[in-house]
């Protein structure tokens, strides 16, 4: 079964996302939240790897409340799905475990 990875740190400032990307499997999920949503920008460090993962079947999500709070709605990279807290709960059920990268 697969793992849900949550990342709550900006990839411009911290290594949380890049570390996650090293071990993330193709059928895993990645959820960007809090300052982690800066990783949803098209030009963010790790953005290319995220797009490659998505092409290979991984699901990448970002908490829409955190995106809106930071004024990033128009800047999110393609195929990153914006979700609410209810869907966050559902994602934890769809995956076996949650690894929080912070």
């Amino acid at each position: 079964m697969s793992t849900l990875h949550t990342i709550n740190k900006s990839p411009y400032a911290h290594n949380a996302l890049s570390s996650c990307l090293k071990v993330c499997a193709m059928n895993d999920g990645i959820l960007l939240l809090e300052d982690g949503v800066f990783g949803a920008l098209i030009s963010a460090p790790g953005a290319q790897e995220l797009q490659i993962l998505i092409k290979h079947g991984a699901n990448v999500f970002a908490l829409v409340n955190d995106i809106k709070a930071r004024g990033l709605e128009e800047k999110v990279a393609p195929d990153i799905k914006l979700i609410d807290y209810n869907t966050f709960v559902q994602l934890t059920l769809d995956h076996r475990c949650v690894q929080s990268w912070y």
Partner: protein
Amino acid sequence: MSKKILLVSRHAPYGSSTAREAIDVALAAAIYDQDIGILFMDDGVFQLLKDHQGKYINQKNIDSMLSALALYGIEKIYVHQESLDNRTITTNELILDDLQLLNSIDVGHLLSQQDQLLSF
């Protein structure tokens, strides 16, 4: 006893309280009539983006706090150009108009010309 003070704000808004509490310090310095400037660099430039909607996470908007800087008479607002470029942010996406864009060498000069630095 007025000194040339620069506040350096390097952290992203909302995920931690650092950005918010740094602005409070800038406003306090202005109230106490100090010669205060503020430099945004690294993830600190995300504070300057328009269209924050802090209500979605039950926080006050940082961008509107920043709009108060001019009201408090803080005119020296510097932004590190490379930090904007790395984040593909253009100046017309920013909340403030009267920004002085600095390259990295200029930032180094700016730091060296202060009487005090307040690092956030």
